[in-house]
């Protein structure tokens, strides 16, 4: 463990400010709480929001798992895990079941989460209405008035143009029947896992300076229409490594002649399935 830093890197005043924001975020599910995001020793876009949230909730007894697109061994996941080993001395794991805090970039683990676990999402753009209305003053008013018409227009335009809702990731959902929120760029495949989830889910957007949350057992309903109900991605073939037909698969290009394979994006889940089969 590196000395000369406070426990979990951030100073205590910063943690207090983030902790207050986290409690308000939990009390108002889906509402984006502004917070004074700090510069972190990594560039914006590399999970500075998630890192600040994790640093503020981390205790010495925690076991941390970090995933990037479902994988434990990608650059972003490895460096964030190392960061907390060095600054907080916490134990780490690659196994979903053994982790007390899981920081994630763009995936929800396949294994069901428990009440004693916290999932921390790294969020690039927290505002679901941002690409439809660039002015913060306006989107804030729209959330205050629960005016989400333009989001339905956007989904309708998807249907008019493509015949179906073409939004495949960062799929907007309504939390606890009140706030429309952006579940971060997880594939829409993961949206149903957010609904009624046993674990607390925290979202941190560093560059955009917003924190929001979904408490355990909270209703998260993906937006849709009666005649175009929400549906998730399906694959025609099983995972090439573990044979799973129920997980989210990544397409891997094998050569320049069109050969490809589909494998689980959740590396821990895939490895365990293979071990079980062997």
């Amino acid at each position: 463990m590196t000395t000369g830093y406070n426990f979990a890197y951030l100073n205590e005043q910063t943690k207090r400010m983030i902790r207050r924001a986290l409690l308000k975020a939990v009390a108002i599910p889906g509402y984006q709480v502004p917070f004074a995001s700090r510069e972190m020793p990594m560039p914006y876009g590399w999970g500075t929001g998630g890192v600040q949230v994790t640093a503020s909730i981390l205790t010495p007894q925690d076991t941390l798992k970090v995933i990037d697109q479902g994988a434990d061994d990608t650059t972003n996941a490895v460096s964030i895990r190392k960061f907390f080993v060095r600054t907080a001395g916490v134990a780490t794991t690659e196994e979903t079941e053994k982790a007390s805090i899981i920081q994630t970039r763009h995936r929800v683990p396949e294994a069901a989460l428990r009440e004693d676990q916290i999932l921390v999402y790294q969020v690039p753009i927290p505002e679901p209405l941002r690409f439809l209305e660039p002015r913060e003053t306006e989107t804030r008013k729209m959330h205050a008035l629960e005016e989400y018409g333009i989001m339905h227009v956007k989904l309708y335009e998807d249907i008019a143009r493509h015949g179906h809702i073409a939004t495949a990731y960062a799929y907007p959902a309504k939390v606890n029947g009140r706030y429309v929120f952006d579940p971060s760029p997880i594939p829409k495949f993961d949206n149903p896992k957010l609904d009624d989830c046993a674990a607390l889910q925290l979202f941190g957007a560093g560059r955009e300076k917003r924190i929001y949350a979904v408490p355990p057992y909270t209703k998260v309903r993906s937006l849709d229409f009666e005649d175009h109900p929400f549906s998730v991605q399906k694959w025609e073939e099983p995972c090439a490594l573990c044979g799973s037909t129920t997980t989210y698969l990544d397409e891997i290009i094998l050569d320049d002649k069109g050969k490809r394979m589909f494998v689980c994006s959740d590396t821990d889940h895939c490895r365990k399935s293979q071990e079980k089969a062997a």
Partner: protein
Amino acid sequence: MSTELLSGFTDHARSSAEAFRVMLDAMAQPGRILPLTPDFAAPAPLFASTAAICLTLCDYDTPLWLDDSLRETAVIDYLRFHTGARIENDRPQASFLLCTPATAAEALAQASIGNAEYPDASATLIIQVPDFSGDRLTLKGPGIKDERVFTTAGLGARFWALMDENHQLFPLGRDVYFAAPKEIAALPRSTQIKREGQA
């Protein structure tokens, strides 16, 4: 300054992190009573659990209001020294309001509810209760699988009527921590509260 100032967390960074996790769990699972036993003693009549909440959350950004029973010199000196928070006399201006069952209803009625665009700009009440027995309540809402039964000591009909109003204001409203000497629980504004015997 006649009395000696008591100390706060021995290892602030680690101990306040542990205290915060209890507070976060309490807020995420409304009505669950969780142990919070910090490693220091607070000046009476302030509980160590209440002090732990203040030392973990309060600083120069959060005006703090105390009811008359807690407005002891020793308590004020202690909170001022350890948190740096301004002691506020005006309830609507405070970020955190420390009260006891007798003053909780009035504090709840006057505390800030935030505004439609910033519902987070609202107050948090910390109510010192002797223990978690007494009023029996059934809770529903985010953080609760189906329903949860919660009991807490003598807050009275007016307080619970105001808590119901507080929930109706959602997403506006105040959030409440209950602090017994060694345990805490929370009721955020999102929780629907039904008193025993009510329809």
